[in-house]
């Protein structure tokens, strides 16, 4: 279905009687390919240990993409604010380079224990597919200060405002992969094992541009 028609169908679907709505949904079903399987969201490294007072960073990685892409997302990442304090986020260019008007990126760290980050690509699905050729993609690096001893487990809040978009603007089913940072004393800080995910995104981390605070 051509996109203008699709949008018209979307708009028209709202007030229409049930039969019309069903027809629109059927049309949407034909236009939007459902992912073959859920996309996994995780971290690289998945776990790590840092000493109290040190800084830590972790990459946010989507994997198990299959033929899917990540075209936009809005996530609330949660952590233990007594252990960590988020200090910043840098976005990869997997959804386009914001400096080239290829994406909008946003971060909100104002709520302790929550990293609210969002990215919206202005690129086409085809362009994104070219930028995301593999089965996983690191989309951002999150920075923390270790402020308290303990282990901060990462989690996500998926609700009506927070989700991940794929091909054709479709919402992707998500499987969360655990992640955490353990803060110990300087002498007790565990040495993390490099994860496979980290190896995948090492290159991507090199192209982080900047941290942008949500300011609009």
């Amino acid at each position, binding site marked *: 279905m051509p*996109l*203008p028609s699709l*949008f*018209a169908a*979307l*708009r028209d*679907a*709202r*007030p229409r009687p049930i039969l019309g709505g069903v027809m629109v949904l059927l049309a949407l079903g034909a236009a939007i390919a459902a992912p073959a399987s859920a996309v996994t969201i995780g971290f690289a490294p998945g776990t790590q240990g840092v000493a109290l007072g040190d800084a830590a960073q972790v990459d946010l990685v989507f994997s198990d993409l299959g033929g899917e892409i990540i*075209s*936009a*997302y*809005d996530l609330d990442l949660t952590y233990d604010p007594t252990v960590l304090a988020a200090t910043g986020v840098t976005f990869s260019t997997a959804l*386009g380079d914001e400096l080239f*008007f*290829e994406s*909008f990126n*946003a971060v909100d760290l104002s709520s302790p224990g929550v990293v609210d980050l*969002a*990215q*919206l*690509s*202005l*690129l*086409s*699905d085809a*362009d994104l597919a070219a930028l995301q050729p593999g089965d996983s993609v690191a989309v951002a690096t999150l920075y923390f200060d270790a402020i308290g001893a303990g282990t901060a487990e990462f989690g996500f809040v998926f609700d*009506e*405002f927070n*989700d991940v*978009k794929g091909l*054709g*603007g479709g*919402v992707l089913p998500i499987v969360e992969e655990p992640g955490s940072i353990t803060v110990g004393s300087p002498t007790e800080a565990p040495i993390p094992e490099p994860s496979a995910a980290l190896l995948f995104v090492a290159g991507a981390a090199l192209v982080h541009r900047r941290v942008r605070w949500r300011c*609009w």
Partner: protein
Amino acid sequence: MRLSTRFRLTLATLPLAVTLSLFPLGAGAGTIDVVLVKGDSLPDGPGTLYYLKGPALGDSGQLLINALLDTNSFGIQDVAIYRGGVGTPLVSVARTGQVIDGEQLLSTSVSGSAINALDQVAFSAKPDARGSGNGLYLFDDAIGARRLAGPGTPMPDSAGGSILGFLGIGLLNDAGQVVRSANAGAGNALLSVDGATGELETIARTGQPTPDGPGTFANVGLSFSLNDAGQVAFSYNVTEGGVFTDVLTLRADPTASGFDLIEVARSGQPAPGSSGAFVSSGGAVINANGNVLFTAGLDVATTGTPGSVNDSGMYLYDDATGLHEVLSFSGTSGLFRSWQPPRLNAGGQIAFQGTLRGAASSADEAVVLFEEGAARILAREGDLAPGGDGYFWGFGTNSPIALNDAGHVAFRGDLLGVSGSESVLVRAIYRYSEAAGLVEVVRAGDPLLGSTIAGVDFLGNADLNSVGLNASGQIGFSFALEDGRVGAAIWTEGDGGSDPTVAITSPEAGAVLGIDEILVEGIASDDGAVAGVAVNGVAAVLASTGNPDDPAEVTFSAPVALAAGENTLEAVATDDEGNTATRTLVIEYVPAPEPLLCDANGDGAVDRFDVSAIFAARGSNATGPDDPRDANGDGLITVNDGRLCVLQCTNPRCAPTSP
């Protein structure tokens, strides 16, 4: 409450390309107002019209209808007299069973009605308590119906006796005077009745000596003519010793002490303009000036058998010049070989139906208007009729022709060859005027009241002042429809094709509008009055402009709903004659575009500014179902909407559409 059916039909006739008439046929237009039709409820009781006679049309435009009803009283059908006009309610004048002056009217006796310019009606009726004779009654709006005289009323002259009953048809002039023949016992009498006082006077009576010669009046004829001054023209047989000797044509002039009788013509009297003498006379009519017109049979010894009628003439008497010939069969002015009783108006014009001389048979009939010494043929057998569909075949018997003081001539015509048929006669009514020429009033085949007219008829007797043509040229007629209904209607002349003017002043032609309903405004006028304006079928509100130079000028306004795209606005103005004028113009309605989905800044495009706005608003609720930021319509502004809108961007990578 108006009980009559009102129906307006605009008729128009076209100028003829080919005609044998001696004057140009004109174009005309008029409206038809149905006053009463079978099926209408009646103002005086149950039932409806079954059949009707007449009708006669008064000078004020009131139609007088003698009606046979579909109800029964006394074992037979009821009869009634009704009066009604254009825009006025139908009024009951009299009806079977009605009680007038204490007497109940029997059925079948209400007849012989006449109407004057004051809308008074004279009629006869048979009360059940007074034998078999008819009484004479007068109806007016102020008093209603009252009995003037009737069986048992003493005769007003020295011969004495009493009235046994009134005869024939009465005449009523604008002064309220009624003239009617009555059975006075030993012979008849011509009586005059003052409608206001009921006072009777004898004009002439059997046995009365003739005024200027030997003999006495024999039986009183039933044919006479009355003008508004109270003068009466009539013809009377004279008898001497029980033998009819002469025929007199007389004029009776009212005086303070009765009527003075003036002999206009008498058998044996030399006929002016001829070598012969009068043998007979009849068909006397009188105009407003007291002039008397009559036809006479002549004995012209040199051309035929002495003592017999071998020529005929038409003669006019006036006080200034006396008696003189108008036309004769054999004279130099003779164009005719026969004629029916003529009509005479105040201007001296004469109209009649005649058969033209030189025709091989008697079947070359014509309707003639004679004025200023010349006869003009208005319609002639074989002529193509106005409207072009059919040829005149004849003009009826019993003289269905009328002439008024304005010079209008109305007559009934029978047509042949209508729509290619050579075997079907179609009846029609025509009217001639100097201004409009000959125009068709109505004909069988015309649509009326959702049906088709099967036949029409028109009252035009020479010696009646109650005819189907009134002083202003309106025509009253009866009609029968193909669906079985009968009725009576009034035809009113149009303004001769002068259509109203109409113009649309707002909106302008070609205007491109962004609203789906507009008020169409304009201005209209007419040489008469603008009856209404409809804009795309919507009746407009009219208001006078107060223009002293054009009192009929009005503004109009009407709301009109528009459809997307081009719209044709049509204003149709109708004048009081039923003429119409139409003006149209085309405008375009371009609906305001619906808010473009994702066009958050409303600039008509979707670009990164819009996506940025959506992205910035993520996490909030949409403002409503039309919030362009809510692309998926879930009521929330999320990155889902942002991404959907990215895919909707006008340019690649959502590049701005303008700097």
